[in-house]
């Protein structure tokens, strides 16, 4: 195929894909701006005649603020525990050879093959017998069981790329292994740490099943569970539902937007010959 045909063709494909991906988001945003009477108007309107922020004002009720705080606490704590643990585990798995290394790595992958639905009952029993139901800690521990294996795998890949010579150079320069880890390895693995952190945040921020099962009181709910409030026995308040959806999505989109540059892992350039 010549360039003249290929380029417009690719452009069309990209437009179709982008539309398919973005349409639900657009619809979410559009409905969030519609007054209560409009979402079911026929024919459906892409953009409201009378856009209003009233749904947002209604959605920002005290419960939402509480849910938001809960989400921040649970996700933040999960992140702050997962990353250091995963970093140390991934480092030892990338540097030390031992007999059961491949068995261990395989087990870490296998742990992810279980669907959340299959894990939830045993996890529930564990959390209950530890008296941690309806607490932040219970939810955080449940999340870590999901995030830690993935984080270990992701970080191990990045750490394997940090040249071993640099740690040897640091050892000759007098640094202890731990010092070399913090001075040399961690800074060089920064793009990987950021990528893994974003991944952990996205997974936990939108998690629904665990949050629903391990919390019982309203005060402990996280944002995804809290959205359930709008889906009542007698009707669904779409305007407010979509307005809070937009507000929930914003932090994740913002984080992703500001950090995407960091994913470009060009940091090891110039370390060794080349």
């Amino acid at each position, binding site marked *: 195929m010549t360039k003249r045909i290929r380029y417009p063709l690719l452009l069309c494909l990209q437009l179709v894909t982008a539309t398919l991906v973005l349409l639900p988001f657009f619809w979410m945003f559009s409905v969030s701006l519609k007054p209560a009477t409009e979402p079911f108007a026929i024919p459906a309107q892409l953009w409201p005649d009378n856009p209003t922020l009233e749904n947002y004002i209604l959605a920002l009720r005290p419960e939402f603020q509480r849910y938001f705080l809960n989400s921040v606490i649970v996700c933040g704590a999960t992140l702050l525990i997962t990353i250091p643990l995963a970093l140390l585990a991934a480092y030892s798995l990338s540097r030390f050879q031992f007999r059961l290394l491949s068995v261990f790595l395989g087990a870490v992958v296998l742990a992810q093959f279980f669907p959340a639905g299959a894990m939830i009952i045993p996890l529930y029993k564990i959390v209950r017998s530890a008296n941690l139901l309806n607490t932040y800690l219970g939810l955080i521990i449940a999340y870590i069981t999901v995030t830690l294996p993935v984080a270990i795998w992701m970080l191990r890949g990045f750490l394997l790329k940090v*040249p071993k*010579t*640099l740690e*040897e*150079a*640091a*050892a*000759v*320069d*007098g*640094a*202890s292994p731990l*010092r070399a880890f913090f*001075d*040399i390895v961690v*800074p*060089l693995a920064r793009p990987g740490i950021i990528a893994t952190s974003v991944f952990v945040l996205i997974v936990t921020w939108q998690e629904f099943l665990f949050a629903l099962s391990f919390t019982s009181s309203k005060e402990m709910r996280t944002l995804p569970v809290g959205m359930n409030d709008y889906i009542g026995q007698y009707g669904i308040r779409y305007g407010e539902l979509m307005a809070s959806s937009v507000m929930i999505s914003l932090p994740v989109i913002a984080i992703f937007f500001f950090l995407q540059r960091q994913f470009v892992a060009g*940091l*090891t*350039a*110039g*370390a*060794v*010959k080349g």
Partner: protein
Amino acid sequence: MAPVTLNSITKRWGTFVAVDSISLDIADGEFLVLLGPSGCGKSTTMRMVAGLDEPTSGEVLIGGKVVNDLPPGARDLAMVFQNYGLYPHMTIAQNIGYPLKVARVPKAERERRVREAAERVELAGLLDRKPSALSGGQRQRVALARAIVRTPQLFLMDEPLSNLDAKLRVSMRAQLKHLQRELGTTTIYVTHDQVEAMTMADRVAVMRDGRLQQVGAPLEIYNRPANAFVAGFLGNPSMNLIEVDVSDGRVRHPRFSIEARDVRLSGPAILGQRPEDMSVVNSGEGDFDGEVYTAELLGDSVLVTTRLGDELIAVKADKSISVSMGEKVGFRFGRSALHFFSRETGERIGE
């Protein structure tokens, strides 16, 4: 400054013996080159001195003290790695100053010493840059500055010039040698390049298959190689090695027979002679006649090769000589520079 002693150190990985019971005394301030083909165990030997690899058995002594159980940082040595080993996220100044920072040298003194080290290797203007903004030669000098900044007892250099282009290598070679003399620091230098070994070393230790072949001053090794391997490895083009039989003071070969009265041996042997000790003469006037296989102009001389049995024999002739491929000429051995080696063991014999 400190002498280094290796006391029959051995390194095994499973059944593979990388370094086989090497003993070596390196004097205070000496420049010792470990020379050998790749995979001969020279880098492993150096890494055991550095503490990056642990000897399976044997002792490493630095300054008369056994250091086997000390981590690399406690051995008071600096190392220059083949691929430089610079920290890419630090500036040049931070790279050079890192050993001092780890040693908790106060900031003001650190900055002064970093500046001094950088000036020594002509890097003064580049201190704020990152390694990625530097050329290969500059990176090499940063690695060197990081090595000299804390005035260690011992320098270890692992093929430090092998990533540089040929011209830069020659000038860095001279700089390195000069720097080492000036500082007077004991240095162990690993290379597979025999020219580097010959030009820089006080003494050369030639290794092969994990064993020490010969230790001595460059000229001594060049003039009196201990075995056929060393004879062939040092010198470029390498020494001609010809299978011969010796009896009654004559060296016999199907194509020639020469007198060698002083040689005290008889039976099968390997005759060795360096290309510069042979000469090209008119057909019929030499020890044997042969067709010119190639004649290569080297600049200061012409390298003439000819077939002798299955081997190509090389002769370094004066550049004024004019021979062409296929031409029949005579070749003559220089009588005073004949070497003999055992066919079985390769050891030097006949003296």
